[in-house]
């Protein structure tokens, strides 16, 4: 599949809306997610408190980021891990590939990590001599299909069961001929098991970095992170620096929020805390453990007044509840992170010039903020990115002209009211039986809906007349 670019947003949207089944396919996942989250929250009476607590933990850690990063590094080193620092995605990718090459790795297994996507690790491997094997079931599917992820929690949600049957029959060594989900999962398991055991290096992300122990935490349902990390000789973790929390006790409220907000589950099948390489008495584990801490725009966001976005724990609730995402899907955004959180992150990862159209593709209805487990004021952040974009003059000139002309009128109430009165006369010319089906300059509206016919005079004209009549009467 052809990969969309963020700068082609308008084109991507048209393409997505023209896809007849896309809406049904998205809804299959988001409706269920929405319903299950609502049930989970209803069964979690302390949700509001947990949310406040989660927000406080994140805000505190972000505020003292330098302190906690140093503490994390010290403790991770003490556990025997090797800590790397990367300020950009390219740097991080280079560090990972260099480690793989030092170990002459031929095959690497990866457990799902959005940061890996963000820093371009998948492409870097695909352009190298090293074979990349995705072990998360959904990532496995989109790797076979050659697709980018369309959702941060369900990256293959855009693929139907029929697609999966076809892909597995084509690529699996011992494919199933059943179309039952359990048989399909078994087929993937058969295919992946041998790969887990012959992998040279396992690469994972991390949901939380615990400063007081130097541990990295993975949250999965399939156990693939454990199988990615344990058998190979080398384990590489890539993690954004915002994943830090002071300790295990601080990670727990966030875990409770994360699983409920993402899938509606109280807990996932596997939550594992990894503590450096194998120790003398351990039965298994990697001999070498590398932790690559990635900035890639995060400190810039902090300096830029976008620190609230660094609270994000990547649950995907904002996209599951977004009316725009639900109609256009993840690929249309053309970026690693789609939906409301993507509209804030992408301008920092790519550039605002490239991604400003996404910030405008939002009705600012506030549903995302309402469901965010860490109270990120997404509409406020999206609006403030529009203000920056406006200052930089990134919007199309016609849009700017219309808004500026409107503001110029609206700041002069008398002129504005005259404009409204003329507008009514103009609209009346195109009205038929209470409705306007077409009118020049309003095709954006009348293309898809009718415009109600206005009354003959504006409110102000009628009000003035009424007041005059009253005072004349007296």
């Amino acid at each position, binding site marked *: 599949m052809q990969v969309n670019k963020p700068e082609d947003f308008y084109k991507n*949207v*048209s393409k997505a*809306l023209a896809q007849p089944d896309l*809406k049904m396919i998205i809804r299959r996942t988001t409706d269920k997610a929405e319903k299950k989250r609502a049930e989970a929250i209803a069964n979690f009476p302390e949700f509001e408190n947990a949310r406040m607590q989660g927000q406080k933990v994140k805000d505190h850690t972000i505020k003292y980021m330098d302190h906690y990063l140093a503490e994390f590094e010290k403790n991770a080193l003490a556990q025997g891990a090797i800590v790397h620092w990367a300020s950009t995605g390219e740097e991080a990718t280079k560090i990972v590939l260099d480690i793989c090459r030092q170990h002459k790795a031929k095959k690497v297994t990866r457990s799902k990590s959005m940061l890996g996507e963000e820093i371009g690790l998948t492409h870097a491997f695909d352009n190298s001599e090293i074979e990349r094997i995705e072990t998360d079931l959904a990532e496995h599917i989109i790797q076979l299909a050659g697709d980018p992820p369309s959702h941060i929690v369900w990256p293959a949600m855009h693929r139907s069961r029929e697609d999966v049957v076809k892909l597995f029959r084509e690529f699996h060594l011992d494919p199933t001929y059943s179309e039952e989900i359990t048989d399909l999962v078994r087929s993937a398991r058969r295919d992946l098991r041998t790969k887990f055991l012959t992998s040279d290096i396992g690469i994972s992300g991390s949901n939380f970095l615990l400063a007081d122990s130097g541990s990295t935490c993975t949250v999965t349902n399939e156990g693939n992170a454990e199988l990615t990390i344990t058998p190979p000789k080398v384990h590489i973790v890539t993690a954004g620096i915002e994943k830090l929390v002071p300790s295990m006790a601080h990670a727990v409220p966030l875990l409770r929020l994360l699983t409920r907000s993402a899938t509606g589950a109280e807990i996932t099948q596997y939550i594992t805390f990894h503590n450096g390489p194998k120790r003398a008495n351990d039965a298994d584990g990697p001999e070498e453990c590398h932790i690559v801490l990635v900035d890639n725009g995060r400190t810039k966001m902090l300096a830029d007044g976008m620190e609230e976005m660094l609270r994000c724990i990547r649950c995907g609730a904002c996209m599951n509840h977004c*009316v*725009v995402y639900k*109609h256009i899907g993840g690929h249309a955004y053309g970026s690693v992170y789609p939906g409301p959180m993507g509209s804030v992150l992408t301008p920092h990862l790519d550039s605002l010039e490239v991604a400003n159209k996404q910030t*405008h*593709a*939002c*009705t*600012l*209805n*506030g*549903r995302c*903020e*309402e469901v965010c487990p860490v109270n990120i004021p997404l509409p406020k952040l999206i*609006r403030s*990115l*529009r*203000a920056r*974009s*406006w200052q930089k003059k990134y*919007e199309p000139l016609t*849009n700017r002209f219309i*808004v*500026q002309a*409107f*503001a*110029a009128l*609206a*700041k002069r*109430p*008398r002129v*504005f*009211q005259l404009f*409204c009165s003329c507008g*009514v006369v103009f609209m009346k010319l195109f*009205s038929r039986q*209470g*409705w306007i*089906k077409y009118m020049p300059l309003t095709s*954006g*509206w009348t*293309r*898809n*809906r*009718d*415009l*109600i*016919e*206005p*009354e*003959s*005079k*504006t*409110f*102000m004209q*009628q009000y*003035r007349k009424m007041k005059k009549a009253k005072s004349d009467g007296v």
Partner: protein
Amino acid sequence: MSQTISNTDRTQSNAIDCLNISEKKVGLFVTCLVNTMRPSIGFASITLLEQAGCNVEVPELQSCCGQPAFNSGDDEGTRQIAYQTIKQFENFDYVVVPSGSCAAMIKKNFVEVFKDQPEWLARAQHLADITHELLSFLVDVCNFEPTGIELEGSYTYHDSCSGYRSLHVYEQPRKMLSKVKGLEHNPLNGHAECCGFGGTFCVKYSNISNEIVAEKIENVLATEADYLLGGDMGCLMNMAGKLNREGHKEIKALHTAEVLAGLAPQLSGGKDAS
């Protein structure tokens, strides 16, 4: 239990407030959509506020709340518009707006654009404090109950996003509508889901907006209600326009104030109230 106590407290304090309300001057911010497209909402607002005992005035030098500029990121344009609104309205005891999104603009967003101007920030904050959305003002501040209004049929209610999420308008319109004789409520599936209007969004992303409103009217039609009610002209225009385009004449979209003021029987489509 604590919820009940605080509700009682609020009702009592409102009752006290209500005794003095006729001495309080209420400025009506008409909004540009009501001014241009649907004056009957403005007159219905005056009727209801007067019935609730308010002394209503409509300052003539008013224009727009500035949302098109603010939501486009034009902070300077927003300030230019806000200066006017603040000057015109800051001396009222209350400012009432028959729209959740315009009220939320004044209550929540004016202060955003005056962060670096302390004097105007204070004036914007004062205006924010005295500004109310119409339906919540009638119930929460005036303790108003409509009397003698009859309308045969059923209604479904769309909670506009700003009113619902920024201003917590939910119970108030339903409470008042429950006093309209003959009118039944058919709840709307996804009652607080965005209708796809979003101000300039509906024109800038006309294609996405169309998909959203198409789904919205499916839900509206499924209620089989006779009236689609709401508190925001923008959302109502969007949904009514889509309903009409799709040929659904069986349901009438009206502002809640129009129903409560007894104007519903004489209103249809975009025809004159007079």
